[in-house]
């Protein structure tokens, strides 16, 4: 328990991923669902950077592929958050609610 190995970071990343999944599946507020998605992406980023650190021990200081991947994931999260919040604003303007339960215009 005292020496922090790669497995510690993987377990932490899995726990954060589970918290994000619970947030996406159980909350009614769209803003909180979007924030849970950001939590999921952060868990994945932590995993990637932890593995990059692991490979640096094997291949030398230039095995930074995990960190580059994490930078791309952050970029992607920014784009997705912007578009998701734009959709939220458009929906709120029409229906005056932020609950995912009430996004049911296509229901028969």
């Amino acid at each position, binding site marked *: *328990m*005292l*020496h*922090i190995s*790669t*497995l510690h*970071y*993987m377990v*932490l990343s*899995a*726990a*954060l*991923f*589970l918290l*994000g*999944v*619970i947030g996406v*599946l*159980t*909350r*009614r*507020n769209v*803003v*909180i669902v979007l*924030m849970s998605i*950001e*939590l999921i992406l*952060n868990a994945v*980023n*932590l995993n990637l*950077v932890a593995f*990059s*650190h*692991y490979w*640096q*021990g094997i291949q030398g*200081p*230039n095995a*930074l*592929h995990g*960190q*580059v991947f*994490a*930078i791309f994931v*952050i*970029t*992607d999260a*920014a*784009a997705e*958050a*912007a*578009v998701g*919040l*734009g959709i*939220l*604003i458009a929906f709120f303007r029409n229906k005056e*609610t*932020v*609950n995912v*339960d009430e996004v049911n215009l296509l229901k028969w």
Partner: protein
Amino acid sequence: MNPPVATPFFFYLLSGTMLIGGILVITRRNAVHSALALIAALLAQAGLYLMLYAPFVAGVQIILYAGGIMVLFLFVIMLVNLERAQKERQFNKQWLVGIAAAGALGGLFITIYTKGKGIFPDHAMPSGLEAQNTQGVGVLLYGQYMFAFEIASLLLLVAIIGAVVMAKKRI
């Protein structure tokens, strides 16, 4: 020999902050409270990146994620009137199924991690990891991953246009 930066105290402190922040994000009734808890979790994650000898990603995380994306979230929360949503029921009707699915996924994670514990053994780390980090990331980003870099900038352009079009009153 590397000075031992990855002390267990900092790891458990930062990971405890992240987990508490995550739990607060998914359980708070007020959306602003959730956003602030997420900012705390992101800053703790930047600390964990520093422990993993990744100062460039830690800087990107603080500037972009905590300072850009979360500020965008807070702007939208202030723009959208959430007063009425705060008084309603907070959790779905299918919250039990959601927690069961997350529990199944957690069981899968536990099985995989206990069976494959020895796959990632510890290696001796080379010295001077922080000194060459930004140069190394730059070499990879503009060399091997140049195509992905250009596609990411195209993605950001599309996201800008999409966000502006979605939020306009009259297109």
